[in-house]
């Protein structure tokens, strides 16, 4: 028994076809090897922005293709890194006169495949910068060489980089900016039900009613700890306080991302945001910007993640700069813009 509404065989190819068809005015799907390209691009942009990774986390990344965000995306199979050749071709499609920046979530497969593509691009004379997103506090273990996983902060990185790239900034500046955003961000995720395994149609792991995976990842691996589900306010306080401890010191203006893991309702996510904002303000911090919704899910997992980013000068403007993509919402201010 497979997942209820996925076709037998390859679930990614038909979804990409449907996606490209539904958003034909914004994106283009290219085959052999599979990658997607934004149709529109700010003429000031001199560096192409390329992201990619396993599928099953939609709308990330392809939903952020378009003016103000990404130029090309290399989608892998479900939870599997894209092939280096996909990254290579996505990069060639995206490269500006100053080259490309790769936004890479910190997973071995992604690092290696983007790394190989970068080697090949350099052989072809294309400059490559790498932004490594590694925000997941649950994997902040000094013992491991693999480092923290990349999760929700990817959206923040992609948005800020996109806006900065639209101002014509160069490769090194963008690479530094992306890595600075990742460094200023930490995330933590919990789940009350595993995602449906694409292969079996059953939950990928079992959780008893009232249990919570604390510090869960986005690829169906279990968290290091399973806890009894605390009342929501206590849970949010605990997560926020751990995030504030893990977050490097910096400005007290925060961007807060409340991200759904797949099956979590907007009723839940906005309620969690209300709670999180209250806790942060009690701690003397300012919630300057926010994003609430299902942006980096793990298929249909029930749960949510919180991401905090300490905002440096100028980042708010980039966050609110208009983006014309399939999935990023309207954030620019009416009164400032007066479109």
């Amino acid at each position, binding site marked *: 028994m497979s997942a209820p509404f996925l076709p037998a065989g390859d679930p990614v190819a038909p979804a990409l076809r449907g996606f490209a068809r539904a958003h034909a005015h914004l994106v283009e799907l290219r085959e052999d090897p599979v990658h997607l390209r934004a149709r529109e691009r700010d003429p000031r942009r001199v560096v192409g922005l390329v992201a990619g990774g396993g599928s099953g986390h939609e709308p990330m990344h392809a939903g952020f293709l378009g003016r103000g965000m990404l130029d090309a995306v290399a989608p892998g199979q479900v939870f599997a890194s894209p092939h280096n050749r996909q990254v290579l071709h996505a990069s060639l499609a995206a490269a500006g006169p100053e080259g490309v920046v790769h936004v890479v979530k910190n997973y071995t497969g992604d690092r290696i495949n983007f790394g*190989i593509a970068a080697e090949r691009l350099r052989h072809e004379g294309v400059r490559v910068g790498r932004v490594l997103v590694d925000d997941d506090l649950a994997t902040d273990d000094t013992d491991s060489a*693999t480092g923290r996983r990349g999760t929700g902060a990817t959206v923040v990185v992609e948005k800020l980089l996109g806006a900065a790239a639209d101002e014509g900034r160069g490769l090194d500046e963008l690479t530094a900016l992306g890595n600075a955003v990742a460094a200023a961000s930490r995330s933590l995720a919990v789940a009350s039900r595993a995602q449906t395994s694409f292969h079996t149609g059953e939950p990928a792991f079992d959780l008893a009613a009232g249990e919570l995976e604390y510090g869960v990842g986005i690829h169906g691996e279990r968290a290091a700890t399973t806890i009894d589900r605390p009342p929501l306010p206590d849970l949010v306080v605990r997560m926020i306080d751990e995030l504030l401890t893990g977050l490097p010191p910096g400005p007290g203006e925060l961007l807060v991302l409340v991200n759904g893991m797949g099956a979590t309702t907007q009723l839940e996510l906005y309620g969690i945001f209300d709670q999180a904002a209250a806790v942060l303000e009690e701690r003397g911090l300012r919630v300057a910007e926010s994003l609430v919704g299902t942006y980096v899910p793990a298929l249909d997992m029930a749960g949510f993640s919180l991401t905090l980013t300490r905002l440096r000068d100028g980042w708010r403007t980039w966050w609110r700069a208009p983006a014309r993509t399939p999935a990023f919402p309207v954030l620019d201010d009416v009164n400032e813009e007066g479109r």
Partner: protein
Amino acid sequence: MTATAAPVLRRYAESVAAAHDELTRLDQASGDGDFGDNLRSGLTRVLAELDRPGAELDRPGAAHGFDVAGRVFLDEVGGTSGPLFGLLFTELARALDENPDGGWARGTAAGLAAIQRVGEAEVGDRTLVDALAPAAAELERGTGFAAAARAAAEGARATADLRARRGRASYVGERARGLPDPGAMGVALLFEALAATKDPGFSAGLC
């Protein structure tokens, strides 16, 4: 020391085919079990291209075969190891092209460097680097193909005592200890094939 690529690749493909089940078993213990498939299918495609009528004529010389293997493994082979082998083959092709004699040492060293740049593994992380680095060192010192093959085999066998810090095996922790790393065994088989191409009686006693 000179050897052309194609006979080495043919011999390598044979020994990988023979070792397929063992390589699969090793990757099942420490990873997801696809390493034997990835390597064998890559080499099968390479040989198919080499055996295409007229292929031998396209680009004769010491490097031929490795350029094909580099492209096939970079472009078409899956898993973490596929493109890493692709980097090695590409660097071997480049070096043998420049210098059919000294190319083996230079190419192996450059392949190791590329693999480490991309994969970020050090010696001791329980990866194919643990077989490749000693082989590169022997070739550098000029001690010959057999010495390099023995060093690679030794490095691969020694991974059985290591805890993985890179790759999928790092997630299973202690569970894989006792068995060697499949990728390292795959690299050792390559250098065994190289030595055996020069000296058909050679064996590093791997599988």
